[in-house]
């Protein structure tokens, strides 16, 4: 292992001295904290400027969009007693954006609702505030997202980077560390969905990221608590559950007293859940009432157009017509399990930090591709571990994945009138990969330059034509969703490819380690 490390270190030094013409040499000389501060200010600037634009369902009664849903939850939580939040009463019409996220989201809505109530009572008054859309109201709502992002996601990124790169005086190239921070913080999809479309993904993803960092620094209990909080904010965080389970279980098995370790973690999980669900634990009805709100199984297998397996293959096989919803539910469950199982088993057998990050990526890919009821916004979940692995994955791959994710949300963002910020952030994420560190990164991992180059060219040409076609040409009357379907199939093919690649990568990892261990024993 030591030998390998030395080998890895040497080329780093060479690149550092070659960077005389690296423009970032001026900015990132002050360690992780300095770089983080600089990049986070820029990230905030991007977020605030995106928030100037429109949001989902702006000016479109009667149902509006996600913005109105979040505002309505604030209205409900600030005006009704806690036990009525999830139940259909005369004051709470669940058919109009009823709460369907776990209790932590409700608490968060409550606190944000109090903030809104203080500055603008009209915006959260019961019934009369439905469809409340004022300039000031929008501003307040935007600031709630911004502050949650700043208070949860940003510190989590800092924690992760500190753990990953080994403290403020890390041995790695400073501009590489800065680039890694930038890739995680300036994730264009997250910015567009949270600060443009309007959601609070930064909270659940930030909690997950904190849990990941805790796992990497071996604070397993903290990791459990943070991940449970994340699950309780958005049930979608369950996409990561197999990886967390696999890794934590696997590492418990290697400790001195496995049953005790597992018990400790189990208690932490149960305790966190009990605290968050406390108001609904007094009766069975209340508990199951909330639970039934969280599992929207009556909805279809996918919503709108998603770049996953069911939606993309529905052009050839009409899943919704061939199968009933319950049977589809079962089929998708089996397919998802089969897809995430290999990576989970790998982590139980050989838990490692890198393998854990790959496991997060693979299990969230599995859920995105095969699970029931997937949104186009769910691409954010695989994207987070992909950005965490930016230093590991070949530069071309992580760039293409980022751009694919963006493209898969393009129809959604078009509906939200967010085309201008979409284009600006699309350009900025390409520029991020063209920054000196990014460019070095792409060059470093280039196995066959000609093939990669042609793939990238084909990708860019295709996505450019898709963008132009989608914006300018009207689809034929007979197939109104023709272009969406084309875009989704394009993205699906990429994402499927990535899934195969990263799964293979994870398994190769364990083989590498196995051989490394053997060598060590022989020495």
């Amino acid at each position: 292992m030591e030998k390998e490390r030395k080998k890895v270190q040497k080329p780093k030094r060479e690149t550092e001295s070659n960077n005389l013409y690296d423009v970032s040499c001026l900015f990132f000389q002050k360690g992780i904290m300095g770089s983080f501060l600089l990049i986070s200010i820029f990230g905030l600037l991007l977020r605030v400027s995106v928030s100037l634009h429109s949001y989902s369902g702006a000016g479109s009664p009667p149902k509006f969009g996600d913005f109105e849903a979040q505002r309505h939850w604030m209205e409900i939580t600030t005006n009704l007693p806690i036990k009525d939040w999830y139940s259909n009463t005369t004051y709470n019409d669940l058919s109009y954006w009823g709460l369907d996220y776990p209790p932590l989201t409700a608490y968060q809505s409550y606190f944000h609702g109090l903030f809104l109530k203080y500055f603008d009572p009209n915006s959260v008054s019961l019934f009369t505030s439905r469809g409340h859309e004022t300039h000031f109201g929008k501003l307040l709502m935007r600031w709630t997202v911004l502050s949650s992002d700043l208070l949860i996601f940003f510190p989590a990124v800092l924690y992760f980077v500190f753990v990953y790169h080994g403290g403020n005086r890390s041995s790695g190239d400073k501009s590489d560390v800065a680039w890694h921070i930038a890739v995680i913080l300036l994730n264009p999809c997250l910015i567009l969905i949270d600060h443009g479309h309007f959601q609070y993904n930064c909270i659940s993803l930030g909690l997950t990221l904190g849990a990941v960092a805790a796992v990497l620094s071996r604070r397993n209990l903290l990791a459990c608590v943070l991940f449970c909080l994340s699950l309780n904010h958005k049930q979608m965080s369950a996409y990561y559950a197999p990886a967390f389970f696999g890794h934590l279980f696997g590492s418990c098995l290697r400790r001195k007293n496995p049953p005790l370790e597992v018990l400790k973690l189990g208690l932490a999980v149960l305790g966190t859940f009990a605290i968050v669900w406390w108001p609904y634990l007094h009766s069975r009805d209340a508990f199951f009432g909330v639970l039934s709100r969280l599992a929207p199984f009556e909805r279809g297998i996918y919503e709108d157009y998603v770049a996953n397996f069911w939606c993309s293959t529905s052009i050839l096989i009409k899943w919704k017509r061939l199968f009933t919803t319950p049977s589809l539910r079962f089929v998708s469950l089996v397919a998802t399990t089969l897809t995430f199982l290999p990576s989970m088993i790998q982590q139980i057998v050989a838990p490692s930090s890198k393998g854990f990050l790959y496991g997060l990526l693979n299990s969230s890919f599995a859920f995105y591709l095969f699970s029931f009821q997937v949104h186009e916004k769910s691409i954010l979940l695989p994207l987070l571990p992909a950005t965490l692995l930016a230093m590991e994955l070949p530069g071309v791959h992580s760039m293409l994945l980022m751009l694919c994710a963006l493209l898969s949300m393009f129809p959604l963002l078009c509906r939200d009138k967010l085309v201008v910020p979409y284009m600006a952030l699309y350009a900025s994420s390409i520029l991020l990969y063209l920054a000196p560190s990014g460019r070095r990164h792409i060059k470093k991992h280039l196995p066959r330059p000609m093939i990669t180059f042609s793939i990238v060219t084909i990708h860019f040409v295709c996505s450019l034509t898709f963008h132009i076609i989608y914006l300018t040409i009207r689809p034929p009357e007979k197939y109104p969703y023709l272009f969406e379907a084309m875009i989704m199939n394009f993205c699906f093919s990429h994402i499927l490819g990535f899934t195969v690649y990263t799964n293979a990568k994870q398994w190769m990892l364990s083989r590498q380690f196995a051989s490394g261990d053997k060598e060590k024993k022989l020495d």
Partner: protein
Amino acid sequence: MYEFSSEKKEREKPGLVAQRRRSYRVSVFVSQFLSSMEDQRKPEKNKTSTTSSLLWFFGISTCVKLLLIPSYHSTDFEVHRNWLAITHSLPLDQWYIDKTSPWTLDYPPFFAYFECILSFFAHLVDPKMVDLEKGLNYKAESVVLFQRLSVIVCDLVLLYGVYRLSKNFSMGFKERVLMWVLVVWSPGLVIVDHMHFQYNGFLLGLLMMSISYLMEGRDLMGGFIFAVLLCFKHLFAVAAPVYFVYLLRHYCWKGFVKGFGRISVLGAVVAAVFAAAYGPFVYHGQMQQVISRMFPFGRGLCHAYWAPNFWVFYIILDKGLAFLLRKLGLNIPVPAASFTGGLVGDSSPFAILPQVTPLTTFIMVLLALFPCLIKIWKNPQPRSTARWIAYAYMCGFLFGWHVHEKASLHFVIPLAIVAGNSLEDARHYFLLSIVSCYSLFPLLYEAQEYPIKVLLLLLHSFLMWHSFSALFTEDATAKAVVSAKKTDRQVGLKGSSSDFVGKGGFHVGWIGRCYLFGLLVVEIWGQFLHPYLLGEKLPFVPLLLISIYCALEIMYSWIWQLRQIMVST
């Protein structure tokens, strides 16, 4: 198996680490030195990498500008839209006469021609935008998008200006990058051009181009572009004396025959530019009208929000004296006129101090410029032109008539060229650019833009702080490495190098730090404490505080620049 944690470091002995670090630093220094030698031999590669990096910087700033499209825009937005309509729908002889909108055309003819060209595209986008009557206060999405995009595209001129400066000027790579950061990512330009709405990036790009030609020694070209710039916006004329003296001495003062020839060439070029601009209006016999539109002396000494300049102190002194004398029992009448209004008859806005007229301000500006002009005549060096021109705009800003706070960009942007020259310059630029950006804050008074302007300023200050530190600390470290090697190998390099860093590194000093802290206090007072404690009372106090506080730094900076110009050889 936890390969990410810092176990490796803990395992290694501390002494070994220090030794490695030492040898590592030396090796980095040597390899940097070697590669810099190599680089001089390979200017080709360097050039391409320079261009692509500059484009990268510009690309990032363009992304931010695109995102800012829906932000607040001032009445200047409607002003420019109206000019599009005037130049599109009226014949040339009506341009400076039309009074349909209160926002009449008051820029020189080249700008009007520029608007005329833009209006051709505007007509293709949305015909209503260029309609004189129907288009009044027309604010559809298409108009916002078109006008904002036109500003973003016109910034290409600024890019070219910066490119020219960095291509030909013998700067180190880091200084060049520093200049791009300061100009291409200038927060002031973003606030004024891309939020408040104006075309300063384009005009300052012309100025940068002109300076780059002067620095190369191509004086005629520099003079020509400056003449063109004057026909775009006459406010840039403050630097005309500097150009005049410099060109006369450096370009024309070459013996009688040659000199006379050069004077006539230069004169002919400038005359041709002005003829191209004003010729049509002279032909229509409207020069009087054009000039009266361009110089509205009906306006007051100060703008509605007082720009942080000399006159702020003058007014405060007057008020203070009047207050004191009234306390002493003297009968001082309260002046009827206001500073921001025009000259109404003979009434003076001052209670005690003498009246200030446009002529007074004109003479003051010339007087302030005078030492600099003498210096130029004595020692006309191309490499100092940027500083002189910036100084001229500083004089205009401090002593001019009806100065706008936006005019501070005119000296902050050219000063960026010399900011990396020395540690002292860097320190002054650091404070000056922060203050100039801060003095623009009142332009954006809505809550929505508050975080944006604060973040822009913070980002700019941190970028400056990091890059100045990297620029000046590294030089010091390199020196320390060499000296430590020479003098003593045993005493441990770390101590001596940190000493050097302490002496040579970038810092603003305790006065600077106190001043910046005061800036924070002023902002917190104006934004939060004042409305909370005093409510609606004395609404002008926060703005007044900003003006006075920023004026302090700009006056100091002006004196420092003057001293620097006089001392330099």
